[in-house]
């Protein structure tokens, strides 16, 4: 069956359909990761987005539930050059097309994804729709033009109710803006007793749980669309060790007076080299963000830049001058991507332990 990608600049890409039958609209973005299509598709930070893989061959090893980053992904569509006919892996439970069908995510294959990527690189991210027939192109195009990307996406991908991720060592509150399971896995690995709160959580609600520290998760969209979280963060950082990841990082920066901006085509992939300024050490990091912190806006804040992308200088991590609070733009939890920066979770553990020691002393 044929399927088409139409973009807001009027261009049309004709390919073949796979996955769900839905007609869909979203922000068209690309990721350069060569493995981990499953983790990417289930990453809630791709909510509202149609995800293009620059790696031309996906679906090769199928899908397994262990590697999912969320239960109900909100990614709007998947675009690739080629989907494997036969996938093989010992952990495979489903093929990729079948999985997408189950998740209600439409896919488009067979288009020149490199041409599309170059377009997005040059013109910046664009809105696009996946449609199944060109007969109603005019209508679809008008609809696409009129579509306003949902600004309330965080509350949709966040959990609606608190839930625990039990452990027996440290008490962590994780505020869920669209959390990837890999963050929960890293906390579990460190035996944290984690309580996941909805994105609407207030400082009071968090403090009532008497956690040792708070983690602000990743999530989709513009950080300025979650003003209540910015306020919550401002209050929490004074009281508890805090660790922000991705959207959580942006929220932390906004809470401290910095500003964020929409990037031309974002960072999506996991070969972004990031320098830890204090040590000079470089880590390859997993990234997925369309917004970033404006470097100049950090000048008059209490934040110190700790990490920077070596090529374009994007702010990749900050630390508060006075509070045990820090954040990174990338995903130390990887999945998909390299584990080079996973020890940041240990830094968070140390911060919590140190605070406890000080309290006990």
């Amino acid at each position, binding site marked *: 069956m044929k399927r088409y990608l139409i973009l807001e600049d009027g261009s049309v*890409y004709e390919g073949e359909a796979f996955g769900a039958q839905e007609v869909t609209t979203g922000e068209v973005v*690309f990721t*350069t*990761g*060569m*493995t*981990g299509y*499953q*983790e990417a598709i289930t990453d809630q930070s791709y909510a509202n987005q149609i995800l293009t893989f*620059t*790696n*031309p*061959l996906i679906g*090769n*090893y199928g899908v*397994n539930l262990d*590697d999912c980053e969320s239960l109900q992904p909100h990614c709007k569509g998947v675009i690739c*050059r*080629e989907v*494997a*006919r*036969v*996938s*093989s*892996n*010992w*952990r495979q439970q489903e093929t990729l097309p079948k999985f997408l069908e189950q998740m209600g995510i439409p896919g488009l294959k067979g*288009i*020149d*994804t*490199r*041409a599309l*990527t*170059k377009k997005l*690189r040059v013109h910046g991210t664009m809105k696009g729709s996946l449609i199944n027939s060109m007969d109603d192109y005019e209508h679809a195009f008008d609809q696409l033009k009129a579509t306003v990307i949902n600004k309330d996406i965080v509350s949709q991908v966040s959990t609606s109710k608190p839930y625990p991720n039990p452990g027996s060592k440290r008490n962590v509150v994780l505020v869920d803006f669209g959390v990837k399971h890999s963050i929960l896995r890293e906390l579990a690995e460190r035996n944290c007793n984690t309580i996941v709160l909805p994105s609407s959580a207030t400082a009071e609600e968090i403090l009532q749980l008497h956690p040792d520290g708070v983690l602000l998760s990743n999530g989709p969209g513009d950080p300025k669309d979650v003003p209540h979280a910015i306020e919550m963060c401002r209050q929490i950082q004074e009281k508890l060790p805090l660790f922000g990841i991705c959207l959580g990082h942006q929220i932390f920066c906004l809470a401290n007076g910095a500003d964020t901006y929409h990037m031309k085509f974002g960072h999506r*992939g996991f*070969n972004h*080299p990031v*320098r830890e300024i204090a040590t*000079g*050490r*470089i880590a*390859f990091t997993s990234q997925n963000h369309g917004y970033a912190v404006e470097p100049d806006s950090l000048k008059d804040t209490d934040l110190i830049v700790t990490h920077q992308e*070596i*090529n374009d200088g994007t702010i990749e991590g900050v630390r508060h001058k006075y509070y045990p609070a820090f954040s990174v733009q990338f995903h130390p939890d*990887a*999945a*998909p*991507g*390299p*584990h080079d920066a996973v020890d940041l979770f240990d830094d968070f553990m140390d911060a919590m332990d140190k605070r406890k020691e000080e309290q006990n002393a």
Partner: protein
Amino acid sequence: MPKRTDVHKILVIGSGPIIIGQAAEFDYSGTQACLALKEEGYQVVLVNSNPATIMTDTEIADKVYIEPLTVESVARIIRQELPDAILPTLGGQIALNLAVALGKSGILDELNIQLLGTKLASIDQAEDREKFKELMNELHEPVPASKTVNTVAEAVAFAEQIGYPVIVRPAFTMGGTGGGMCNNREELEEIAANGLDLSPATQCLIEKSIKGYKEIEFEVMRDSADNAMVVCSMENFDPVGIHTGDSIVFAPTQTLTDREYQMLRDCSLKLIRALKIEGGCNVQLALDPNSYTYNVIEVNPRVSRSSALASKATGYPIAKMAAKIAVGLTLDEIINPVTKTTYAEFEPALDYVVAKIPRWPFDKFSRADRTLGTQMKATGEVMAIGRNAEEALQKAVRSLEIDQKDLYSKEAAQVSDEVLEKRLVYARDDRLFYLAEAFRRNYSLEGVHEITKITTYFLDIIKHIVELEEEIAHHPQDQDILLKAKRYGFSDDSIARLWESTPAAVRAMRKEAAIRPVYKMVDTCAAEFESATPYFYSSYDQENESIKSDKPSILVIGSGPIRIGQGVEFDYATVHSVKAIQQMGYEAIVMNSNPETVSTDFSISDKLYFEPLTLEDVLNVVELEQPEGVIVQFGGQTAINLAAGLEENGVKIIGTTVADLDRAEDRQLFDEVITELGLKQPIGKTATTEAGVIAAAEEIGYPVLVRPSYVLGGRAMEIVNNQQELANYLKENTEVGLAHPILIDAYLEGRECEVDAICDGTDVLLPGIMEHIEHAGVHSGDSMAVYPPQSFNQDVIDQIVAATEKLAVALKCKGIMNIQFIIHDGEAYVLEVNPRASRTVPFLSKITGIEMAQVATRAILGQSLKEQGFKPGLAPESSLIHVKAPVFSFSKLDDVDSYLGPEMKSTGEVMGMDQTFAKALYKAFAGAKMAVPDVGSVLLTIDGKDKEQILPLARRFRNIGYQIFATAGTSEFLRDNGVHVTPVTKIHENNADQTNILRLLEANQVQLVINTMGHDHEVTSDGFVIRQTAIEHNIPLITSLNTAEALLTALEGRSFTTQSL
């Protein structure tokens, strides 16, 4: 960290001659490294014994030494040059081993010379099996159960403990030389004994077999600041059990989940950090397809064949970066030369798939054991890039330049199911075609997976191609199917076969339907950043990224994969042609399919198309680029074979015209030229039937030389002495024989020589004449040669020059050509003319200082020799004597007869130069690892007809103090003639008083074997077994008395005369 300022002069060690396991990839890495060091302002001194390389060009390093890669000779260079440091990690295992030996010799400490790049201790830790295993245990990285042994008994004891199958891996050898898989005690005893012998440390690792695991490779880099990264991941199509150099490989990995990938990436980076590698390194891993269990197979602490492949697959120049790291620069301060907008600290992202297929020499060695295992057998490889795996694989298959143009094999189609299954289980070079055949016979994916252990994902690529074949066949002239076929990599040829049409008709239909390939850029970053890399591959996709420039361009066709008869020499000529094209103000465009070479480094030309070298693929590029012309003279037979088809399609071939190429290659037309010019040639006939061949041979008189027309490197060429041998020849060569006519020539005794000539249409320049040392009958590529000639008088030289000038002008040669002569009774006979660059071009260019490929290219582009400042005729001779010696890879190939004949067998060459013939000879022998001690023992096993000739040689051996061993006949003859000799018994004889000939060899009691027992090619014949045994025990072997005499000359040059009064 800024680059080091305490080092000024750096000695770079090259990799020596091309052998199986060490091919052109080190010319590429060495060239890159030298240029990178020069770019950083260091003075570079290079030593390499291989003249056929770009790296030994004087413009690559400040000083170039073409000298043997032995401690003795390199130490001499070190004392003379006094470098501050040595860089040994870019010249393969040879350079690494030499660095270790130099370190042990004490000279580095004495002269306070540092080793750049990875430290010796690290190299040792990675290479010494025992130390490596210890390190892995320390790091908690799993390795297969293994034990280092020094004797066969230890090997057997350990194997019985862990259970068969086991793998034998000899320490410090390349390409897995001497290793192998053993399923039982008998096999182990044999392979372990051989492996111990070949290991310089007499050490082997006996390892539990993990056959069937997925084989994964990571190319990783690290700098002195401990920044580490992965450049490329690769996954072998063939599971563990087949040497990675003999495996079909895809990049990036295709069947690993992110979790598996990151697990192996973590391991690789952990290893490179623990080993403190500074530069590039290759990590081989085996992953259980049914769990997270993995094993580290090995680490190569240097750039390798895989890193060359990774560089071409990603665009990321590993060797160049490794050289910069070696002088202290770090990855985060070196600019990525591909994007020029990012840093070198960047893990490339691919938006295409790469397939590599090895190129094996079994088309030449029809008797060789074609089974693949842990010993690498391929001489070269091809790479292809596509937007899907089917496309990449099919492009790679047609790049191989073998009989199979796609996955359909006539041979496979004819075998029984039983044979088919055997071919699937016991992999040979042609397994790919049998896999396709299995799916044609409706074998299931699971069934084939069960017996081959190849993952079903990869198997389905083949199955898909087979299904597409059928779909294409059922829809002749269907445009939609045509587009689909092209998107999955089918060639016009294959489609024509399936449609029972012609490639031209398919092409015409395709053009009418506007189904044309587009060209995509290789940019290391999957289009995330803007790049301007002039490196492209074709695909049937939407957007074309290769834009024709306004500058007039010339397209140069490369020479494809390295194989016997077509080696790195042709890459040398291609690269030089590119340089001249650029100097003449044109844009130089290169097409090639070989990932190992310098010509496929995108920084060499203005534009590189990494494409198969078939008519269709070349025409597609021509249509896009509209070059002023195409040059085919430098890409060996590969490029020449394309000339006619290109011209038929209206493409302008510049240089010698197609009609004139034909006059040189077509027997009858050539005979007419010879007659017209009044030149001499051996009587020759052409026949197209068996009876005709026999009649022609009778008429000429035996012995005769028989061969098919249009040959490459003497394929299927033989000297036959009688009708019986001729009948055998015809029986073995029916396929080559009657498809093309057979040529029958009188076989003349005499010295052979060859000439490369450059002609601008009017004048002819002969840079030099090379005299062959072996008698006519040994292929010119296998024979030793000397420049200037040592045994020709002026009259002979004048005849050669005159004949060359006449032929060049008469054949309207424009550019370069090669002529072979035989000097019989003082007269020069023309043997053959090759209207293209030959394998002697780099050798002669280097010693005469005339950059022949460049001069020829300028002549092709219209600059006359006189305008270039050359005086026509034979160029003045150099005062030094230069000897070329061939190098063979027999130890890697079972059942190949090492007896030299008219079929070429060598894989590479070395050069020795000095003031005297004897010294130059000695260096050539030393470079070719044929150096024998000044005093020792020689075993003579001589064919009856050679007895008279052996006598003076035997006397000369005795005069320099050599002991002689010989079998009954020869020893009696020598003793009767007053030569002291120790008799040995023949293979199947027993005699209590005498040593058996094989025991003698096995006990390493002789330092040299001279064996001329030829003609009976049976693998069980005595001559064959003796030769094989000598090779297995690393004993220098000579099969021609001319070579023996040359060696004597060399030895005598080193020894004092001891004679009583």
